[in-house]
């Protein structure tokens, strides 16, 4: 079975590179008019076929990865963060393919495919080995709940991509009015957030390739039910250079990095959860590398990133983008309700004896649902189309990502098996 898992890993890599290639092709497809070709329409038609074929091949490769890993691992690969995130990226591509087949706009590929690529790269940060299932996860409802919820979320991701495109298309980057400047700034912050995620992935892979390691010993004091304090010493391993050491810890091993031979700070005392120091250090690194990436890009384009992308969106009907964003969310909403709430409730009822327990993950799924319900109700009101609704689509996907990643990173709960 080992060889099957290896093959599965190869298919995953193939999918990744095909997506990257597809992204480049989609960019070529829509930027044809800038090359002053004699026949832009023919150029677009030709490259649309090429890029869509490539992205579809990538999707097929990832579906192959998914099923071979399922057979090889003996259970559906959605039980840890690596497996879940790669499944999510696969469903984003499936959702993209469906929406593309309805609207046939190449420009959607320029934004939706990178979202899938980033989610997929993010998945690769986590340990890839097939892990043993704990009894609670050994249920048919796990498969149904997780896959349906991820499908709904994938459509929200497409809605996010289209919403962001709408903003990049319609925000007036030349204007100096207060309203325009505010819109420009928020678009820039959104792009920066995406870069921070890319920065996180990049720094993890860089230091992994360098084999970096630092080890700390941390004394963890816990108070048990009889109000007795007990302490135990835990070893915390860092794979990124420790800017922030765990609270109340001593250094065991520290590979030096750029002349830095000891941590610069210690985590505050209230960050005393499991691996809280390491998580904080990871966040610090993500922000630093994101800012470096942003700075580099600014140096290259010499204007705000939004203003740099804006011209590429010329000639695209913003109303189409608005429609695509709304449609994707409308398709995703029932799926999300079914997967993230109803199936989750059925599983919780069987596994934990109650369909709802106000576990942080459950609450955040509900928050996501309430957010998109508000979006759908607002869409029916006057004045909530276009810009406002695109912002909601962007924020909505941030809520989704917080539910999927942030809750595990910041708040622990019953779903903590999917640890970061």
């Amino acid at each position, binding site marked *: 079975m080992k060889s099957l898992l290896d093959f599965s890993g190869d298919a995953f890599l193939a999918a990744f590179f095909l997506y990257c290639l597809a992204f480049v092709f989609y960019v070529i497809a829509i930027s044809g008019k800038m090359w002053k070709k004699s026949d832009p329409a023919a150029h677009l038609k030709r490259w649309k076929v090429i890029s869509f074929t490539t992205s579809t091949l990538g999707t097929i490769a990832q579906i192959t990865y998914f099923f071979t890993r399922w057979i090889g691992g003996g259970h559906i690969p959605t039980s840890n963060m690596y497996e879940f995130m790669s499944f999510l990226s696969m469903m984003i591509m499936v959702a993209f393919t469906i929406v593309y087949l*309805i609207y046939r706009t190449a420009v959607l590929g320029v934004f939706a495919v990178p979202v899938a690529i980033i989610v997929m790269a993010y998945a690769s940060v986590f*340990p890839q*080995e*097939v892990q*043993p*299932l*704990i*009894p*609670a996860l*050994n*249920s048919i409802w796990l498969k149904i709940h997780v896959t349906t919820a991820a499908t709904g979320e994938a459509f929200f991701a497409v809605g996010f991509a289209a919403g962001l495109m709408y903003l990049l298309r319609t925000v007036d980057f030349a204007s100096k009015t207060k309203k325009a400047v505010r819109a420009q700034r928020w678009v820039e912050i959104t792009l920066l957030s995406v870069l921070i995620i890319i920065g996180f992935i990049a720094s993890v892979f860089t230091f992994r390739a360098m084999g970096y390691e630092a080890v700390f010993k941390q004394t963890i004091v816990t*108070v*048990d*039910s009889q*109000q007795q304090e007990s302490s135990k010493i835990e070893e915390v391993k860092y794979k990124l250079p420790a800017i922030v050491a765990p609270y109340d810890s001593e250094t065991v091993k520290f590979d030096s990095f750029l002349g830095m031979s000891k941590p610069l700070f210690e985590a505050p005392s*209230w960050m005393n959860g499991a691996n809280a120091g390491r998580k904080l250090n990871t966040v610090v690194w993500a922000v630093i590398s994101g800012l470096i990436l942003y700075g580099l890009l600014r140096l290259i384009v010499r204007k705000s990133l939004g203003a740099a992308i804006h011209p590429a969106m010329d000639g695209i009907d913003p*109303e*189409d983008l*608005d*429609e695509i964003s*709304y*449609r994707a969310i*409308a*398709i995703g*909403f*029932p799926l999300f*309700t079914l997967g993230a*709430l*109803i199936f989750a*409730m059925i599983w919780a*009822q*069987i*596994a*934990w*004896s*109650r*369909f709802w*327990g*106000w*576990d*942080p993950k459950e*609450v955040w799924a*509900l*928050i996501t649902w*309430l*957010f998109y*319900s*508000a979006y759908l*109700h*607002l*869409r*029916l*009101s*006057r*004045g909530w*189309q*276009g810009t406002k609704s695109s912002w909601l689509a962007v924020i909505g996907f941030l809520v989704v990502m917080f539910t999927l990643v942030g*809750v595990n990173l910041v*708040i622990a*709960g019953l779903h903590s098996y999917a640890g970061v």
Partner: protein
Amino acid sequence: MFQNTKCECGHQNHVGTVLCEYCGKPLNDAEDANEPLEMRYDGVARKSQKANPSLIDKVWNFFSSVKIAVYLIITTLLGATLGTIFPQESTFINGDPSTYYEKTYGTIGKIYYTLGLSHTYTSWWFVTLLVMIGTSLVICSLDRVLPLYRALSKQQIRKHMRFLTRQKVVYQQEIALTGSAEEWVAQAVKPLRRRHYRVHTDGSALLAEKYRFSRWGPYINHIGLIIFLLAVLARGIPGWYMDQYIAFPEGEVKRIPDTNYYLKNEKFTVKYYKDSELPKEMQGENRLIAELYETNAVLYECVEQCDDPSKKPVLKEVTRHNIEVNKPLDYNGFMAYQTDYDPTLRLRSVKPEFRNKETGEVYGEFQLEMRDSALSYDVGPYHLELKEKYLDFGLNEEGQPVTKSQEPNAPAFLFLITGPDLAKEGELYFYFPLQIDKERFDQEALNAKLSGDFAKKFEIKVNGMKNVGLSTTSFLTIRVDSAMPFIWVGAAISMLGLVMGFYWNHRRIWLRFDGKQLTLGGHTNKNWYGMRSDVANLLKQMNIEVDAKSLDNGGENR
């Protein structure tokens, strides 16, 4: 204020009507207005649009507003986030919440607790918000669905010209008719039917409509949500809801409090992953990761002598089930879930012998259960009577023996022994089955004090581990939740409504001829892209080439 609600077509409309219910003429707009019409609820008057509202009307109007509904949703959403900042009280079984938050999180924790956020989801304001959302669901739906139903069930085929030209999808053109307008209209029926439209014609006018049922989707969804919320509230009905967390040591029958049921943990097994089955980075760390744990449970119902503590209840087995995580026992809605386990072995029973210390003669053995111990034992010629039992032996401040808990942590038994060569009234003897307790509480000294020489000559002692019964403990959640069927029905109805509302759209195409001039209007509740493509397709079938996008008459894309 007097308002003339009679349309020029002669139809008398309700107050608040936007579009004439009969011909569709916009009633309130200026004659020269030309932006697309407000088509929500087909322009009918909603129930809340009354002149001179009374107090009840005002409450009704408040809850019937979608704006209020959105505010309620957003407030609930923000309120819910507060409860995820720190763990909720309900999630920890041990510990005192009043000190826990301050101790763990400092001042912020104290504020959190003082504000009642440690039980956000049962706080009055959160429950109030949920009840208000429920009210809003009912009133918003009733306010709209009845007038909408009325409007859609009696539609006019030939609509007012301004109704058509002010749709979001419009086409108006002189047609080079080869026959009559009626013939043209008759020909248009076929391609529309092919696209699943129901077509109604009236001379040179036509109405094509499809998937009207999708309009009921939101309301069906709301009905489902209301049933769901009511079911949650119904758990407050006595007897509808029970939730208990009980430890079941292996081999023991335990009564489930407040019920007639007894449950026996016949056997508890836990299977761990082998080290070789763990991922490489976890190997060699002596990690115990459970692959499976299960309780072989037997459920009994008490049939006689149930509430008389002096008599042993008569139990009848009703069902047996191997309870695993994800595989609860279910007996007519009485559920038992595998929740946790304690692999520490606890003493369940011993089989000690009664012997003469000086001669080494063994008079016999007897079976001593820690729980449900028999009150008397015959061992050879001797008779043992159990006078006192302490499951968790200890001495209080006056030096009197007491039991500290009902768990067999340090069991001790006080026997009165009668038989040959003993004092007539018998001899008292303390027996500690566990060696550690025997030494800790000094059994010999205790017995010497109680009965002098007797304890030097006789003893009760376990001979070998084979005579010791140990057991693990399984923790089960016992639950009855009679609201569950309603919860699932509510969820299913809600889901049905969502699918109806989101995966189909209600599309209508109206057209009329005035001489040779064709005027066409199209409306959908969602997905204008699909609407335009339907109209473009119809025109194409009628040999009119038109770019789908050009049919768009502007206005908002709802």
